[in-house]
């Protein structure tokens, strides 16, 4: 059975400018342990889908099941890495940010520190745990977000363009680390991006979304390439071109 099932999910916002159907008839099964990359142009409804899986927002049509149970609210089984880094707690150190979920569960100070240190090292920030978010670079903050989600040991990770605001080099480094961490932990990942290369480098499957209104899943392409992925290999290029063609149609309006 799939870990997460989206069954004909739709979301219509009712705002000041009237009703806006952001997502329509979105169906997808996520298997346990897979790394699913959701690709789409800006405004097509990617964040909306993620927010519904996270339980921050409710679908206005269809339903989302986690282990067969409808998702009604956010929970510790779904860790989220947010698009910006406003979600870190400025008044806590990097280490205490990472250990925040453990604190919520009442874990003692010593155990919490030890576990947080472990994840601090995992994201490559050894020795920087005493810094506050204001003393960290953008890339370091995203690492802290990832470590914070992982330390809580969720069943799946929901990541919303986690590397979107980073420079190309930092992004490549973090992609490599995320891939390695995923190989180690085998968490189910729903990873949102608008970077085709990123999607093909990280995902076991890549889903391409159709532009809104009524954004929906247009195609799903399996990526059967071994990790770590060789970005200059012919097989990688072929998959890249396949995804690129789908996105290209999307941008230039051929439906």
């Amino acid at each position, binding site marked *: 059975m799939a870990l997460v099932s989206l069954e004909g999910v739709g979301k219509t916002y009712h705002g000041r400018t009237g009703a806006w159907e952001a997502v329509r008839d979105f169906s997808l099964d996520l298997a346990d342990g897979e790394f699913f990359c959701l690709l789409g142009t800006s405004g097509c409804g990617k964040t909306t889908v993620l927010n519904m899986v*996270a*339980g*921050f927002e409710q679908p206005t049509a269809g339903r989302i099941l986690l282990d067969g149970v409808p998702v009604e*609210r*956010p*929970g*510790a089984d*779904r*860790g*989220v890495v*947010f698009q*910006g880094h*406003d*979600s*870190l*707690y*400025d*008044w*806590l*150190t990097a280490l205490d940010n990472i250990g*925040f*979920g453990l*604190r*919520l*569960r009442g874990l003692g100070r010593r155990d919490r520190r030890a576990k947080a240190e472990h994840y601090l090292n995992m994201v490559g920030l050894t020795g920087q745990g*005493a810094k*506050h*978010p*204001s003393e960290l670079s953008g890339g370091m903050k995203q690492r802290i977000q990832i470590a*914070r*989600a992982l330390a*809580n040991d*969720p069943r799946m990770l929901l990541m919303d363009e986690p590397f979107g605001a980073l420079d190309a080099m930092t992004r490549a480094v973090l992609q490599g680390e995320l891939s390695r961490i995923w190989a180690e932990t085998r968490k189910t990942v729903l990873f949102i991006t608008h970077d085709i290369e990123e999607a093909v480098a990280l995902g076991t499957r890549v889903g391409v979304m159709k532009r809104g209104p009524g954004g929906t899943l247009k195609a799903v392409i399996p990526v059967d390439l071994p990790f770590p992925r060789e970005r200059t290999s012919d097989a990688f290029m072929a998959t890249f071109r396949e995804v690129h063609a789908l996105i290209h149609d999307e941008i230039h309006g051929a439906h």
Partner: protein
Amino acid sequence: MPSFTMRSTVRTDKLATVAGYVAGFALLFVIWHLAAAYLVKSILFPGPWPVFERALVLIEDNILQEQIVASMRRIMQGFLLGSAIGIPIGLAIGSFRIVRWLLEPWTEFFRFIPAVAMITVAVIWFGIGEESKIFLIAYTTVFVVVISTAAGVGAVGRDKIRAAQCLGASRLQVFALVALPATVPYILTGMRLAMANAFVTIVAAELIASNDGLGKLLWDARLFMQIEDIFVALVALGLLGFLTDRVFRVLIRAFAGRFNATV
């Protein structure tokens, strides 16, 4: 060693700040001296030296200390009372829409009635003893603290709350561990503004109805034309206000996480 260089630049920064303050105050006194000695040349405008000498006399006679303690005790009592009332109300207004609808008319109404205008009723209700002053300081503190606290709660980032929720936080935990600490800098800023109001209010209240305090010192000095006493009181007010404000700024910075605060 990088950590050493960082710490030493922090220290030189602090030294530079303190040196700047000392130089700034010194300049103020020099200009005051020059103005009194060469510009105004009136016995109604004493220079810093006669005022300093007078202050020494007042300190020797234990008069200045008593007035400062009297005024500061009222300020602290009223200020703490007002904050203790204002913070929970502000948190409630910021957290619950119903409370906002119910209480916002109150705060929006009373904050335009200055404490100084309330002196007369305060004296009628509470007499000229301590109660009326504490009431007035608390009154002037409450509304500023309520408004900034409520604004702080409203300004907590949505992602901060969502992050806690998907880490498994209960509503109570979201409030205590996210909304509250995120609001602390706003609360302290409100208290800092309220403290400035408290100084205004206490002097006005003591001028009109009191047996001691810096306001009383000012009033008596006017009655007996002791011009130096007036200046001693004014300088004392300025210095006290300056020092309390420093304390608040340090607290605000620490809570905002810009320094390695141990909070």
